[in-house]
């Protein structure tokens, strides 16, 4: 399994039955089958087999399903007679249902529901790489700020030099049109927030994303997280639009939830107008931006390019 493979000795994986009895008519009997196999030391083998053969047994019911489960037990070289008898007697049923009742006290739970060090995993999607990013957030939360200190002088022009493993990308900050978000970006840059973060999603012809401390893109799906400890309001402007490549904007999953994530466009993106706050434009190093390694979060993807640091200077 991905998490075990990547975390090795750092992770303890626990499986608990949550048979959704109202919508899954075969949930309880298959939980019982796993328990009955567990009683003979082969819980995980039956667990894996039940997931693998879901389509096969999912179409069966009643006696047919029971005999198929007994066949699985035989296949796993269990004592099939004992297994069959335990299913028939419902040896594990009460325990499974009692646990289910207990879990309902946490509120409505879907299957699967994941819990990391007793923290519920939010609705970020179930890609293992995103879950992995959440585990890192819980284990080692990034520095938190109550807001951005004012680091930019409103009467000055500024450039942000994004120093990457491929070279420098210089961004002229839109301090007039997006004073709050440009300042927040500059503040986080000066705090070293972006140092070491990856361009974790790079799609040639579309966009390059960075600024997620998990490098997982977890802010791109489902819940939008306030990574630096605060959200900034939107600052969209009719004067600044996604009309060309090299536009730099904050990424947010909802209104007024700008956090630390940002992206660079590789092409005009008119659909984004009014949706995302533009904080600047690439004025030098667009070739560097375009040379960023195409990748996306996930096993087997190319290693992303990394931000070494971001320098903020008057210009």
């Amino acid at each position, binding site marked *: 399994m991905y998490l*075990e493979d990547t*975390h090795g000795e750092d*992770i*303890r*994986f*626990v499986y608990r*039955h*949550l*048979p959704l009895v109202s919508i899954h*008519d075969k*949930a309880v009997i298959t939980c019982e089958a796993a328990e009955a196999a567990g009683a003979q030391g082969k*819980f995980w083998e039956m667990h894996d087999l039940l997931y693998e053969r*879901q389509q096969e047994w*999912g179409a069966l019911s009643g006696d047919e399903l029971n005999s198929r489960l007994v066949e699985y037990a035989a296949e796993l070289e269990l004592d099939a007679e004992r297994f069959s008898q335990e299913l028939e007697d419902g040896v594990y049923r009460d325990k499974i249902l009692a646990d289910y009742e207990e*879990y309902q*006290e*946490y509120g*409505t739970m*879907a*299957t*699967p*529901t*994941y*819990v*990391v060090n*007793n*923290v519920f995993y939010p*609705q970020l*999607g179930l*890609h*293992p790489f*995103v*879950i992995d990013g959440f585990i890192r957030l819980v*284990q080692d*939360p990034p520095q*938190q700020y*109550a807001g951005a200190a004012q680091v930019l002088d409103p009467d000055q022009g500024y450039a942000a030099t994004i120093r990457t493993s491929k070279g420098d990308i210089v961004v002229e900050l839109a301090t007039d049109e997006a*004073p709050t978000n440009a300042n927040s970006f500059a503040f986080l840059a000066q705090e070293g927030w972006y140092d070491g973060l990856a361009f974790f999603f790079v799609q040639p012809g579309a966009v390059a994303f960075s600024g997620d401390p998990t490098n997982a893109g977890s802010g*791109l*799906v489902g819940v939008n*997280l*306030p990574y630096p*400890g605060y*959200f*900034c*309001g*939107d600052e*969209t402007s009719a004067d600044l*639009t996604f009309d060309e490549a090299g536009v730099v904007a904050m990424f947010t*999953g*909802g*209104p*007024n*939830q700008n956090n630390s994530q940002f992206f660079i466009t590789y092409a005009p993106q008119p*659909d*984004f107008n*009014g949706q995302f*706050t533009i904080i600047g434009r690439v004025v030098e190093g667009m070739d560097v931006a375009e040379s960023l390694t195409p990748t*996306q*979060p996930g096993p087997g993807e190319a290693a992303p390019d990394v931000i070494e640091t971001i320098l903020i200077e008057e210009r």
Partner: protein
Amino acid sequence: MRKSALILFVLLLGLIAGCGAESETPSPSPSPSASPSPVPATAAAPAVGVTPSGPAACVASPLDFQAEPRIPPVTEDDHVHGPADAPITFIEYADFQ
């Protein structure tokens, strides 16, 4: 609309949201007490088109993941892989269907 832009990003992301689940699609569960509260109290309506937004402020919203104390501790009755002293305990609540 902002949502359509989001959908585009998710499409660009490929299968990031979909794959990885061992069994079924999760039913959308709000679990409000469990999730961090990402929506600031001052959240306003989404901007539409290129209508300029007004001046913006930043609102503190700590990344605060609350542990759920009612989750039963892991015991020897549980089905467990991995070392007992691992720094991460990952519990999956699921069924096979």
